[in-house]
């Protein structure tokens, strides 16, 4: 199987879906002539032309709404936000238009659209460019929230998202674009709403998505050296949650740590923990712990930034606490 980057896997998904369906188009800032701020759309302008690879002004609210309107009359827009930080300017269109249209029209008008772009912190980009908003979007009925961690999942989930009839918030990891992995060629679809066990284990479940998946896999390696077998479950989709996969794993290990990059308060992991305690309270041998980003705006200084971020060491420490090993 070819080994390619997460970035190129996304590019492949876009290319294949645009070739498959004339109604699919890509719109956003710098997606065409510039070849994408993060080069996800490299080569697409040359292949599909300016009618389908559409450069916009810096006008997030406007082009998000243009995408929703185009979807309401049958097109399948992929709207790229240069980063999800900038998508805050467009949130009225994502929440009040895209997420609500089917319901308030009594099922007459759906919005098959993908909003995509990088989310989370990179390196030393400070407070306005280092944020995780998945909990905010996952809060909204009508939206689906997808966050792939690997190149194969990035391709398979983006293809599924484009074919889906509902509005999808598709969050890529800014620090994942250069990550390499095996990616199936051609038709490779990963279903939305399905988690995956990325590593099997017995003593504790590490729940994660996007960037924290690699951190949990690293943590599992560290735990193994101390004789602890950790299972790593990649949620892949935040909404709808794959409850079955989560509960199956935790029922087996009886202990769990939820790792997420975003802030602690009302984070996506809080919902996961709530589901666990409500559904399988009697299976638990310890409280479920969460490892999250620090509840502060992201600082610029690299030592402070490191202190604010999730790390494999922090996940290991939490795992030991739920195992009563520390």
């Amino acid at each position, binding site marked *: 199987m070819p080994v390619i980057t997460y970035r190129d896997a996304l590019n492949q998904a876009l290319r294949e879906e645009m070739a498959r369906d004339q109604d699919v188009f890509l719109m956003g800032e710098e997606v065409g002539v510039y070849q994408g701020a993060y080069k996800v759309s490299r080569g697409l302008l040359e292949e599909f032309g300016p009618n389908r690879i559409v450069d916009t002004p810096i*006008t997030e609210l406007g*082009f998000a*709404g243009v995408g*929703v309107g185009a979807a309401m009359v049958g097109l399948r827009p992929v709207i790229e936000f240069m980063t999800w930080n900038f998508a805050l300017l467009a949130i009225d269109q994502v929440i*009040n238009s895209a997420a609500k249209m*089917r319901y*308030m029209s*009594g099922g*007459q*008008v759906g919005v098959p659209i993908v909003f995509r772009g990088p989310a989370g912190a990179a390196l030393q980009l400070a407070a306005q460019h280092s944020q995780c908003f998945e909990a905010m979007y996952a809060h909204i009925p009508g939206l689906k929230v997808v966050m792939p961690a690997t190149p194969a999942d990035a391709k398979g989930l983006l293809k599924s998202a484009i074919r889906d009839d509902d509005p999808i918030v598709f969050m890529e990891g800014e620090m994942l674009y250069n990550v390499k992995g095996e990616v199936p060629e051609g038709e490779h679809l990963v279903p939305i709403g399905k988690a995956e066990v990325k590593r099997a284990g017995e003593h504790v479940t590490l729940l994660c998505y996007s960037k924290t998946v690699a951190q949990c896999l690293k943590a599992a390696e560290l735990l193994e050296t101390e004789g602890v077998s950790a299972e790593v479950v990649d949620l892949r989709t935040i909404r709808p949650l794959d409850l079955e996969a989560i509960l199956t794993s935790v029922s087996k290990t009886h202990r769990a740590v939820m790792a997420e990059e975003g802030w602690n308060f009302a984070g996506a992991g809080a919902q996961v923990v709530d589901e666990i305690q409500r559904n399988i309270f009697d299976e638990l041998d310890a409280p479920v712990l969460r490892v999250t980003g620090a509840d502060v705006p992201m600082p610029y200084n690299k030592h402070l930034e490191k202190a604010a971020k999730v790390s494999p060491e922090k996940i290991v420490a939490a795992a030991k606490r739920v195992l009563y090993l520390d």
Partner: protein
Amino acid sequence: MATTKSARKTDTRTAEKYRAYLRQMLLIRHFEEKAGEAYSLGKIGGFCHLYIGQEAVAVGCLSQLRPTDAITTTYREHGHALARGIPARAVMAELFGKATGTSKGKGGSMHIFDASLGFLGGHGIVGGHIPLSTGMGFAFKYRHTDQVAVCFFGEAAINNGAFHEALNMAGIWKLPCIFICENNRYGMGTALDRATATWNIAERASAYDMSREVVDGQDLAEVMAAMERAVVRARRPSAPTLLEVRTYRFVGHSMSDPIHGHYRTKEEVEAHRKRDPIVLWAEKLKAEGLLDDTAMEKLEAEVKAEVQDAYDFADQSPDPEPEELWRDVYAPVGEGR
């Protein structure tokens, strides 16, 4: 001889059309009066914004469209819905929140939709639907059709970022969009000159390299003529237009707002009521010999009966089933491409 005969035939058809427009305006007026009544009886809940005084705008603009064109509008949209041909029964039932309403009772007064007529919503966030119509225009150009995307909004929406962002893109890409600003002078209770630095709204179009016109919204003939020109520009090759249609709301902003409130005087409202679009149009038809008192009375009676029928239908219709709460949040499983 043949020419005269055909001209006479055309005149008859035109006369019929003109009377049909009068009927549409009367229908909106009586529908809205009835909706106001139903609101005070507690049969309609939430917010309810009436269109009384602005009837010529919806009727005049929508008279120039084809069934395949797409329309979005604001939360003051009962008039547009009726002018587009959505049955009064379905609109009234939606206001009543009933299962027989356009959105099965889940949208209400502010969210009337009929996808089969390209009526893509009453929208509740000021200015938020302007980019949506722009996207519809984008889709029509993308598919090389000659459909037109029409967007109605109030003058208060022009100070919203969505207006600027959307019209700029429509200008850059020369989209088949018609932006209709219904300038009724007040955004809720804030007068235009307290909210907008430049008084001439149509002039905003110059920032977007867009055609523009200022139209007397109380004069149906003027509205139709301006809209006809805008539609020609939009159809092919496509070019957008901003129409500033000057009109006046004869009633309060919503049912909770008295007719003139603290922000305008009774005298001002009375002065504007003298230019009632329905009266002006009826007088014009009478002057041209296309309407007499008997025909007018007959129309009024017909329209009143239609509105009463819509009211009774809505009143007697069932509420949505409890399971309806959970439907239409997401697409049915198994759909998609």
